[in-house]
């Protein structure tokens, strides 16, 4: 079991990333908070050690994605996220950002994951493949298809 010191450090370091991955997957703030707590509970109970900060960060990303997937599966919720989650954040978003987020959140789950990890966390396809436990070629395919959808919907820099 992790110490309180480890927990506080991990909270300061990864809370935003965990929250964003939850945002990408889940329906509303309430669900996000539940999964957020679950992720940190998993961390608290995690007995293994991490080779590096990068290793720890990738662990958080993978565990959060899995926790979101499990949450959705458990409650038999739709894999497609309605727009109320964006409404929660709308006050702090400009129109362009809100439109982009709405479009990303409409992507299938697998595309949302790769878009988030690739464009926000700036992981390489190889690293994303490791985090998601997929083949590198699969990640390239998903990234390519996700970008294609965004290009169709948004044009601009995605074109």
């Amino acid at each position, binding site marked *: 079991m992790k110490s309180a010191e480890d927990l506080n450090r991990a909270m300061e370091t990864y809370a935003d990333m965990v929250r964003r991955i939850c945002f990408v997957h889940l329906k509303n703030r309430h669900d996000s*908070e539940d999964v957020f707590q679950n992720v940190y509970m998993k961390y608290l109970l995690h007995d293994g050690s991490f080779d590096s900060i990068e290793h720890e960060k990738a662990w958080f990303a993978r565990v959060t994605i899995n926790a979101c997937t499990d949450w959705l599966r458990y409650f038999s919720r739709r894999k497609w996220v309605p727009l109320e989650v964006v409404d929660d954040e709308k006050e702090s*978003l400009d129109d362009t*950002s809100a439109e*982009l987020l709405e479009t990303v959140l409409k992507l299938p789950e697998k595309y949302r994951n790769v878009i988030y990890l690739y464009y926000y966390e700036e992981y390489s396809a190889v690293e994303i493949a490791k985090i998601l436990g997929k083949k590198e070629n699969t990640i390239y395919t998903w990234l390519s298809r996700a970008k294609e959808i965004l290009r169709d919907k948004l044009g*601009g820099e995605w074109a």
Partner: protein
Amino acid sequence: MNAFQKSMSEVRATEELKRNTLQYLNGQQEKKGRTKSRHILRYALVAACLLLLVGTGSYSVYRKPVSYISIDVNPSIELGINRFGTVVSAEAYNEDGQNVLQHVSVKNISYIHAINRLLADESDLLYLREGSLLVFTVISDQPHSIMEELQANEFTQTYETLLYTSDTDCMAEAHSHEMSFGIYRAYLELSLYDSSVTVEDCHGMSIGEIQTRIEGCRHHNAAQEQNGQEQNETQGHHNGHHGGHH
């Protein structure tokens, strides 16, 4: 910063979310700690019960002597030894032996250690001098290993040491006469040479005195045999026979 990063940059974990999560986890940690304590307590209780059960068995095994050594100098002392080679009982069979055991602690240590402690006792209650006679009589399923260990000890260099074996029947008879089985074995040997000797005669004798009488009888017998042989040889010569042929 790309457009996606820009749009996501405002999505953050609020301080309230972090605080609530930490509070929740601390609560879970305490609960787990309490559960763990209860589990530890439960395991400790189970372990204590097991220890009590196993311990009771082990303790009775520990306490049970499986071998005995009678140490006879002038004091006569019997040591009971458990299967681990530890002295678990010590009985004195004369006044000198009682004095020794009052001064020297011999229980719960190895028998060699116990014997060395008795021999090294500075109060000189064993009346040991260089060359004194020290008789060890062993009763055991495997007496030879004990005898070898005794033989290998340093005191065999300092004192005249005799080693004998005996058995539990002999021990029971000895105890019925309130003497050590070492003394009783010596009496039995002496009675082979001298049928007139009684247990009562030996009761007040030291092992050295009995041993001296045994030696005396042996010499006497040996001398008689020698004389007998010589007489036979003389008669044989007179009769024209060679005794060696008989």
